[in-house]
């Protein structure tokens, strides 16, 4: 898994690529979110277009990130969720929890940014 961060109109955009699974990646992901929260970011977009595989630990990372962001009174939107991840969201009913958009621009618009 690789992570790239960029900021646009005070929204922190995390571009995730590769496989989202447990182990060191999970730690990397958590640390990245915590660091951005500590820097004062409240509005997050995860661009998941490049995620080709996700297991339950990867899903756990997303849930953990959402929890951290909500606890910091922030908000998270997902962008470019692939079919595979969408079906995982459908099974686990996480579709009702995660706000997802077709692409980063749509997600930015939803923030009014």
């Amino acid at each position, binding site marked *: 898994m690789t992570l790239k961060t960029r900021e646009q109109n005070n929204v922190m955009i995390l571009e995730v690529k590769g496989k989202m699974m*447990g182990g*060191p990646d*999970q730690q990397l992901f*958590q640390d990245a979110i915590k660091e951005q929260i500590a820097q004062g970011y409240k509005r997050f977009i995860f661009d998941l277009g490049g995620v080709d595989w996700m297991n*339950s*630990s990867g*899903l*756990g*990372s997303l*849930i*953990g990130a959402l*929890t*951290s962001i909500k606890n910091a009174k922030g908000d998270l939107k997902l962008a470019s969720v692939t079919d595979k991840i969408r079906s995982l969201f459908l*099974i*686990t*009913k*996480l579709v*009702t*929890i995660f706000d997802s958009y077709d692409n980063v621009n749509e997600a930015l618009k939803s923030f009014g940014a």
Partner: protein
Amino acid sequence: MMSDPSPTGELEAQSKTLESASQADWAQKRVFRELKGMLQTVRQELKTVTPSALQPDRMRYFEEQLERLSHLLEHVEDVQRTRLEIQLITQIAQKLANVLELQEVLNLILDSVKQVVDYDAAGIFVVGENGQVIVGEVQRGYEESAFGKVRQKLGQGIMGWAMEHMAPIVVADVSRDPRYISARTQTRSELVVPLFTGGKVIGAFNLESDRLAAYNEKDAEHLMTFASHAAVGIERARMHRQILEKQRIDEELALARRMQLSLLPREAPKLENFEVAGINVPSEEVGGDYFDYIRLTDKDLGIVVSDVAGKGVPAAFIMASLRASLRIESVSHYAISTILSRVNDFLFESIEPERFVTLFYGVIDARARILTYANAGHNPPLLLRQNGRRELLSEGGLLLGAFPAALYHEHRVYFSPGDLLVLYTDGISEAENARGEQFGLDRIEAVAREAAPRGCEATIESVLKAVRDHVGDAGLQGASLSRDDLTLMVIRCL
């Protein structure tokens, strides 16, 4: 005569020899220094002699003799240095053979090198296991605070160059080398050799001096000899660490497997109008699959299939808590929606935010042939109707343990004789072959329908076999363990 059987005695004798050897070396060094000094003095004196006082050919003769003497001295010094090096290397090799503590060996190497190639700062650095993160193993002469800089040097800078080009590098004046990253203000010159094992660069050995042009090619050669021993030590220690780590993981997995096994039902329950069978095939890493039968009354049976996110001991612990909580709630409450809400809240309180559980819980009223269920984010069980229709039992609510105060809805399905219910975890449905194709629901249905007339046990066997055939060489064959837990429950209405 008996020889001294204790290795300690041998070591003591050895260290005494080395002590006196090092005293002799020190004396020799002093002699060399004095001789060099004398040579220098004679050279200077010769320069002050007026040319007329000596015939030019006599003068040349003296100069030539002096030059020869100087070379001879250099040669003797070099021989001495090599002799010392051999002595030190022998000592290091002995240490390498007996000591597994890497730090100890590397410290010895650093101190030994100083006797052969002098330095003001030195470090042996090793590339981290993942190939990126860099770890300083042992060092001398750097400030604690500058160590971050030193690590950076390994990836880039002069150390980076030596590692990338797999060659030693001598920098006579670091202030003139743009690659140089300063970690000490006093450093004037630097010598770096890469560390190799099996043709791969695993790190670098770095010496820094406060003098300009302190190192030459000969020094690099000497350092390479020490570096090769350091590399052997690092590799051995790494392998030893890996063995210990593997032992630890194996013990942990054995514990997780025992926990998981002790929580799974030993036999299928007998039930009016229904036949029931279930199985869990634990994976190599022990996933968090769980299935259960909870006897509520003589005609009501609770059935559970669940998957705890994660693997190993942490997943096994969550599974144990889940089982306890579900069993308590299921006998204290009638409504499945209430049971799942309470289990969710309990898990939410007890587990980390990154962890969760997917679970299908249902109660079969065997006499009325009714299943009441709620699906908390689990792969939907297949209700394969006798008439060929397929229903997915997905109603319920969110996965468990990740969010507080989740609400669950229960649903009811009516069975007819010949209907088949197949519950599973993603280890079955998402088992992939070499082309990345998942086993999928259609294959589960086809195999289950075909095998169903032979009974639930036979259906389970057939589905497991089909999954293994599908995975083929991409996973592990036969009875060996797969990448993910495989869990199946098959219920047939008679």
